[in-house]
């Protein structure tokens, strides 16, 4: 249930994504290997009659069933609105409400007018813009790191297959079984005193690089590469393409769907991560929003804090609303991995 995730490495992405597995693990749910799940979904849209639920068309025509179900659905919708939007509406309201009103009458409708200055104060005085940028940088770097490691690694494991591929595969898979919590302390000490070079504490590499060590991503991408038609590779090789060209011009362009999934997970996980950046970025100037917001609550006026919270929420919510399908489809695409 709680996917609140203490995991420092980008196995951060794993729980959400691993959770997506069963959809395909269940008989009949897994899309045909060579066919990305997207097409499966389209098919579903085109022929809704194929996708019936427990209630048959005949039953739908019965008045009692129809009214019962419609009623239940309306109730569900109402509950979902309260559940999904209620707290966010309150947050937005607090963001522009004077502090005294938030404290005294949190649910009243602006008894003393608005406090638009909360927003500007949060953005400039509290420097939310600065921490916001930090969050973006962290997410960007973690994303690059994960994509690079996952695609090159997946390429080696699935396409190039050197003799040590099998051992490598096991070594990567094994880390899937190690809960991230075990790594918390030793990984922190590794950052503190890396095998080579100076301490990575207070450096973004301390967040980016461990994010790359996500077995989940590697496995996800490797399984996807497995499903690409070998004939295309062989043809390319016959045409004289080296492994670099094969990778860059053939494999990567064919992998957009899976890269999309990895990217979404990577960015979300980075945006949400709290414990790990808290540990390795003690310098407040470098901290992302997630770490900074809790520290700010003690020095910030409540109204301004609420504005800061609202600002931090708007971007992920907008991204979600715009790319809703990609998010919700994650389940289907995640199904590319099996055991």
């Amino acid at each position, binding site marked *: 249930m709680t996917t609140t995730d203490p995991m420092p490495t980008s196995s951060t992405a794993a729980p959400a994504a691993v959770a997506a597995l069963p959809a395909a693990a269940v008989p009949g749910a897994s899309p045909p290997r060579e066919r990305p799940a997207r097409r499966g979904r389209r098919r579903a849209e085109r022929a809704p009659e194929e996708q019936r639920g427990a209630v048959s068309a005949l039953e739908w025509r019965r008045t009692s069933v129809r009214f019962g179900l419609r009623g239940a659905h309306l109730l569900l919708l109402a509950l979902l609105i309260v559940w999904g939007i209620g707290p966010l509406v309150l947050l937005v309201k607090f963001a522009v409400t004077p*502090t005294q009103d938030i404290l005294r009458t949190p649910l009243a409708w602006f008894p003393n007018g608005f406090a638009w200055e909360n927003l500007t104060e949060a953005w400039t*005085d*509290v420097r939310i813009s600065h921490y916001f940028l930090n969050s973006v940088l962290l997410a960007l770097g973690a994303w690059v790191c994960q994509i690079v490691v996952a695609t090159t690694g997946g390429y080696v494991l699935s396409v190039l297959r050197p003799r040590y591929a099998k051992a490598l595969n096991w070594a990567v898979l094994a880390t899937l079984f190690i809960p991230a919590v075990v790594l918390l302390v030793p990984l*922190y000490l590794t950052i*503190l*005193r890396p095998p*080579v*070079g*100076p*301490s*990575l*504490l*207070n*450096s*973004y*590499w301390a967040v980016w690089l461990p994010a790359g060590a996500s077995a989940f991503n590697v496995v996800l991408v490797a399984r996807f590469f497995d499903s690409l038609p070998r004939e295309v590779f062989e043809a390319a090789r016959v045409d004289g393409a*080296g*492994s*670099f*060209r094969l990778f860059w011009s053939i494999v990567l362009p064919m992998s957009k769907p899976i890269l999309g999934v990895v990217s979404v997970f990577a960015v979300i996980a980075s945006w949400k991560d709290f414990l790990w950046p808290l*540990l390795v970025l*003690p*310098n*407040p*100037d470098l901290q992302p929003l997630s770490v900074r917001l809790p*520290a*700010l*609550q*003690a*020095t*910030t*006026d409540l109204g301004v804090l609420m504005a800061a919270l609202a600002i931090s929420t708007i971007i992920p919510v907008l991204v979600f609303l715009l790319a809703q399908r990609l998010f919700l489809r994650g389940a289907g695409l995640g199904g590319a991995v099996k055991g």
Partner: protein
Amino acid sequence: MRTGRTPWAMALTSAVAIASLAACSSDAGGEASGKQVLRVVSLLPGSEQAAFDAFDARVAAFEDANPDIDVQQEEYEWEATTFASQLAGGTLPDVFEIPLTDARTLIENGQLADLNDQFEQLDYAGEFNENLLEAGRGEDGHVYAIPAKSIYGVALHYNRALFEQAGLDPDQPPTTWEEVRAYAKQIKDATGVAGYGMMASGSTGGWQLTAATYSRGGVVQEADGESYESTIDNDATRAHLEMLRAMRWEDDSLLADSTLAWDTINQAFAAGQVAMYTNGSDVYNSLVETFGVTGEDYGLTAMPLEGEDAGALVGGTLAAVGAQADDATKEAAVKWIDFFYLQNLVEEEQAVENAKVRAENGQAVGTPVLPIFSREQYDEALGWVEEYINVPLDQMSGYTDVAFDQPVIGEPTRATQEIYALLSTPVQAVITDQGADIDELLQTADTQAQDLLDQE
């Protein structure tokens, strides 16, 4: 082995990546353009812009006086949770601040630099309050950490406006715990605002409970030759917990929040959500620095002292440098400690300059603290900056009248922060549980504290 062009391209890319990695991670510290870079702590994160302006002005003055030193500032708040690992990882600023009580262990662990040579160069090296200086000395008699910033006594802070609203005379603050309780109830009944607040989170609850214990004539540990005995389970601590519970559940005058820490209770007080609380006597500085408090409603008075051995808890801050610092850094560090923390206490020109800058930026000047040097020295320094003093001194007389004469007791010396953390549990319990078994809570904490003391 024959290789194509592309593998080399990749090798190059990897090499560049690794090189840039190394470059990026090594840009902390070191020397830039021949100048000695010195990283120092500035203010609490989230401080007001004016406070940073005042700090920047001081940095500029220091760099003018020491053109070979480049000062880089970092916001800093000492936190038990990150301090140890930051120190071990060498990522603290070059000059950092530590609680008085932690110096002994840090020195024993070899984690602080020996500043003795540089310290001896200060003309006022011999004038420190010897008891304080002792806290920063190692077993070899060398100075590793220098008393700086502030030495505070725990005192009672109150909101004069709320006193007036409740029909209390703000010039007659409470002098016994009984009065504190009665006043708190009167304030709550009259204004609806919590009359009293108590830190409870992390180690802060135990810190304030220890201060209250001292004020009622108890202590939480006693030295017995080489070993230490925990005395947490004592009547003074029990009496205070009983009072807190009564205030919470009978009078409903205690702020019902068991998550308050040093910063959040300051916030609540600054926002007028609590009328009285105990904290270091110098907290007014932070209230101005962080919340822009202006002071008309601020009142400060001494801790109520009851019983034979009662005293006010004193604590303080030392400035120190990490063990790995080289001589040049140490040299620059002590210059900064001298300039920023100490000169304005011992040297008129600097004192006036500092007070002027702070006053111009709306920061507090003249907040009562305890002397790092002698009492006379302290009074003299206060005289120098008289025209800049902007704190409401007449609203602080309840404290300043007795501050130098009241008995004071230092913090527990062994496992201080850990024992504070243990003591926070009973505080949280009485705030949140009407039926909390105080005897049992104290026994449990006492046993655990004894375990810690035995491990030392």
